[in-house]
């Protein structure tokens, strides 16, 4: 499993990480000031006391990471929840919006891909709706849905919809004619053809769309939660910014990155599962 190449790459990664940490450390560590003549005066000036609200050192971040991860699921009221709980809220919203989007995008994409007429008819709408920032829908969602949490789900739905829809339509439209001809000469009924020929043929493209969608959804959920507030990892970031606790903000950024990587990895695996070699 571990070839020389991967081992060397891993070593190099480690070197980069250490170098970055070192740069960070020396840029942020505060040199011990020469003791002031008067301790009391120094205290009055705010010196000599460890600052908690400045840019943290790697060591401080490490402390925070250990502290957060040792108690991920505590709940001390609306503004003080464990990061695990916040993450769970975000993931639940993403899962909800994403699932809804897939439930709409895949069947609709199938229809668009199979019917050139429908493709042409719907294309202008898709082209106009696709480039709209999902957050632009937020006011409309808040007004109509009147629930900030559900509005978040709606925003995720909207942003996940387009890549999945477009990729499904493209995948279905570009199924090789040969396979369709085989299905025709075998008099395969439409439903069986859809599920046994077109779906597996288009599956890699559909999964690519879903992978792009989940990536965008994870990008958008942070912004959406900053906007609607209440719960979620995005709200956590905003809350810690208001607390001027940069350590926690950096920790949250790390968590968001790792979670995004995991999501992408999972969909990458799913994609591999349905990919075929021609």
């Amino acid at each position, binding site marked *: 499993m571990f070839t020389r190449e991967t081992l060397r790459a891993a070593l190099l990664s480690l070197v980069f990480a250490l170098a970055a940490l070192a740069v960070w450390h020396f840029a942020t560590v505060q040199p011990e000031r020469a003791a002031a003549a008067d301790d009391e005066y120094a205290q009055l000036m705010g010196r000599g006391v460890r600052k908690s609200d400045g840019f943290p050192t790697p060591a401080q971040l490490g402390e925070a990471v250990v502290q957060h991860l040792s108690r991920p699921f505590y709940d001390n009221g609306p503004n003080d929840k464990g990061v695990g709980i916040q993450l769970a809220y975000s993931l639940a919203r993403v899962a909800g919006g994403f699932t809804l989007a897939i439930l709409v995008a895949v069947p609709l994409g199938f229809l668009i891909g199979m019917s050139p007429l429908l493709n042409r008819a719907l294309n202008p709408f898709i082209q106009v709706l696709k480039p709209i920032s999902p957050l632009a829908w937020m006011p409309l969602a808040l007004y109509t849905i009147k629930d900030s949490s559900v509005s978040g789900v709606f925003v995720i739905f909207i942003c996940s919809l387009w890549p999945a829809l477009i990729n499904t339509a493209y995948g279905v439209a570009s199924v*090789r004619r040969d*396979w369709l001809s085989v299905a025709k*000469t075998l*008099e395969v009924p439409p439903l069986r053809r859809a599920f046994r020929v077109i779906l597996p043929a288009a599956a890699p493209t559909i999964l690519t769309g879903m992978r792009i969608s989940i990536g965008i959804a994870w990008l958008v959920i942070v912004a959406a939660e900053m906007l609607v507030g209440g719960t979620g990892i995005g709200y956590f970031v905003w809350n810690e910014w208001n607390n001027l606790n940069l350590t926690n903000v950096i920790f949250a950024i790390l968590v968001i990155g790792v979670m995004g990587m995991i999501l992408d990895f999972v969909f990458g695996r799913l994609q591999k599962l349905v990919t075929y*070699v*021609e």
Partner: protein
Amino acid sequence: MAFLEVQGLKKVFPGAAGRADTVVFEDIGFGIERGEFVCIIGHSGCGKTTILNVLAGLESPTDGVVIMDGREVAGPSLDRGVVFQGHALMPWLTVLKNVAFAVKSRWPDWTRDRIDAHARKYIAMVGLAGAEHKKPAELSGGMKQRVGIARAFAIQPKMLLLDEPFGALDALTRGTIQDELLRIVQATHQTVFMITHDVDEAILLADKILLMSNGPRALIAEVVENTMPRDRTRNTIFNDPQYYRIRNHLVDFLVNRSKLYQSGAGRDGDRHPPVLRPGLDEAEAPAAAPGRQGEPPPLAHKPAALVVNLR
């Protein structure tokens, strides 16, 4: 009336804006008897594949009808198995599943075991026993095409349509699969319509060879009956003097005469192309070719030394 009857087939592709329509072929008429193996030969662009697609029901002709077993062909049917040029296997399915997919389409009520057993029988028939669980990507070109043949045979169609099935294979593999196809067809008395570019392949396999003139406005110029004994094989075929006479005739047609029809020569409104038996000695069959070109075809080439690349 023949088992398969093609009458007055014509295909027109509409031209792009402002340009004239293209008549690919017209006045195509021929018959295929039950159990007969018919090859069609012609240069690229004469519409051979279109004719096959019309027989398969995948394309509809501009004019004319195809009648099989007393019923008009309108749309694809399980009665006609097709082996596609590019094998057209589904790459996400194993060999067994590819064949089983066709079997299940033919007999939807069969149990899984029965379907698998049936599929295995046909996979073994094309010599691929042991490769059932391989994906097409793991197979060589020849093996893929064999799976395609097994899939077409497995649904036990009334007629088999082969679109240049061995075109992409190397000469050695092609020979082996030709032998296998010949063996299977002789054993099952399958009715076959096959497109080929290969004169030797046609002589080996076909009972009747349709010669198509060059497109556009292609037509079937001649029907050549293969008078060689049906138990011929790839190894013995060269010992028969008929082989050289037939081969000469076909090559001469492809090289010299196939383009003559474009200018309008030979178009006399006669829908029935002459039936020729060039394999027989001229003395044996003087009246065998009553068509419009009564004179025996000129034999201008030395057969043994002639190599023609038709691609």
